[in-house]
Each structure stands twice: as structure tokens, then as C-alpha cells.
């Protein structure tokens, strides 16, 4: 009985795949990562669609407010842009001098 069972176990053992199979594991993980990527793309796509739809819905209310704000902020934004340009030019001067 024990001998027969041992023989049975030995026969079963002959059909076992290797304990480590890098190819199989890599294939599984490639499929897992592909699925994760697809889910991420679908999530970002869905979020973008929801955002676009929300913007489209509130645009009639948002547009006049943006126009009003932009008129008031235009001088400030122009000033900030000029300051940013000046800073960029001043920071690049030593480099220009060295070269």
C-alpha cells in the first residue's frame, strides 16, 4: 500500500512544472501591468470627460465672471509677466558674459 502510494506520488511528481519559471511569471506580470495601464487610461479618460462635461455645463455662468475678472486683472498680469521677463534676463546675464 505504502509502496504503491509512493509510486503514485513519484508519478505525479514527474509532471510538475519547475519550482521557478521566470518566463511564466514574466508573462503573468506583463498581463497584470497591461491591465493596470488600461484601467488607469480608462480612469483618466473618464475623469477628463466628466471634467469637460462639467465645464460645458457651467460655462454660461463662468464665462461672464472670467471676462469681468480678466478686465480687472489685466494690468496686474501684464506687470507680473514683465517682472518675470526681467528676472529671466537678469539671471541669464552672468552665463552670457562667461560664454
Amino acid at each position: 500500500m505504502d509502496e504503491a502510494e509512493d509510486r503514485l506520488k513519484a508519478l505525479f511528481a514527474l509532471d510538475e512544472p519547475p519550482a521557478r519559471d521566470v518566463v511564466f511569471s514574466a508573462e503573468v506580470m506583463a498581463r497584470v501591468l497591461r491591465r493596470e495601464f488600461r484601467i488607469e487610461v480608462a480612469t483618466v479618460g473618464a475623469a477628463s470627460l466628466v471634467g469637460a462635461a462639467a465645464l460645458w455645463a457651467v460655462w454660461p455662468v463662468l464665462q461672464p465672471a472670467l471676462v469681468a475678472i480678466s478686465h480687472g486683472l489685466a494690468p496686474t498680469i501684464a506687470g507680473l509677466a514683465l517682472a518675470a521677463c526681467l528676472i529671466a534676463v537678469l539671471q541669464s546675464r552672468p552665463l552670457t558674459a562667461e560664454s
Partner: protein
Amino acid sequence: MNAAGLDEALVAAAQAGSTDAFSRLVERHQQAVRSFLRRTCGDWAAADDLAQETFLAAWSRIRRLEQGASVRAWLCGIGYNKHLTAVRSASRARTRDAAWEAGRPVIGVGRSDDRLTLERVMGELPAEQRACVALCLAADFSHAEAADALGLPLGTVKSHVSRGRTRLLQALGGSDG
């Protein structure tokens, strides 16, 4: 850290979203899952496809795995359900049944008579009985662990294993006393 402890740590990390931890789980359990599916469905290529599907499903459901549960039993359970789903699909089942016999000579090239006999008798066992034999006689699962994996009552598993063992030993020329 023992094997169960390492599994628990890897499951916890995978549940937190670590694909590296899941990759380690795949490495650790691919042999058990593939062996079980090879013995259960008979067709090695189909078994490996099912094993890949099993791990994909496991990744999706990893958060449902309770702490301390046997990972290999859980994976074999998913694999068994995948196998049953495939077999229940009528056309695929017919193809698989035909492939079982048609595939034998190719798979059996260079094999001993005993191995061919074992494969033939395993193929003749009912699916549930074959799964119980594959887990308890070939993979050293306890009856309780196999019952948990296959979703069967403990008594049914014991009975399947006993009948399966008798059939296999008789076919291999031994007596089951």
C-alpha cells in the same frame, strides 16, 4: 519568516497595490497552481493559459483575500472555477474532451506505461473527483484545505479522494487495502 508568514506579508503588500509583492506570490505559487490545473484539465497548454487567467483574476480580487487564509488553496479554488467555466462552455468542452484523447500520444511520447496509465485514469475520473485527487494525493493538500479550495463539503472530498485513490492504484497494479 516561515512560508505562511511570508505569504501573509506579501498578500498585505499586494493588497496595498504592490505589483512587486504580487510578482513574488506568482513565483511562489505558480508551480502548485499549474500542477493542479495540468492534472485537472489534462491539456498542459490549456492548463497554463488557465493558470495565467487565475493569477490575473487573483490580482483583481486580492483585496478580498482574508488575512491568514491559505494562498495556494485560494489560488487553486480560482483556477478550479476557471476550469469549470471553460468546461461548461459546450463547444470548448467538446474540443477539450476530444483533445484529451487526441493529445495523449503527443504528450505521452517518451513516457513510461505507468505515466500513460495514470494520465488515462485521471482523465476518466469525474471532474470533482479528479480535482480532489490532484490536490490531496498529488499536491499534499489536507482534506480540509481541498474542501476549502474547491468549495465542497469535507465528507465529499474524503470520499472522492478514497475512490480516486482506489481507481488509480488498481490501474497501476497495486491494491488499495
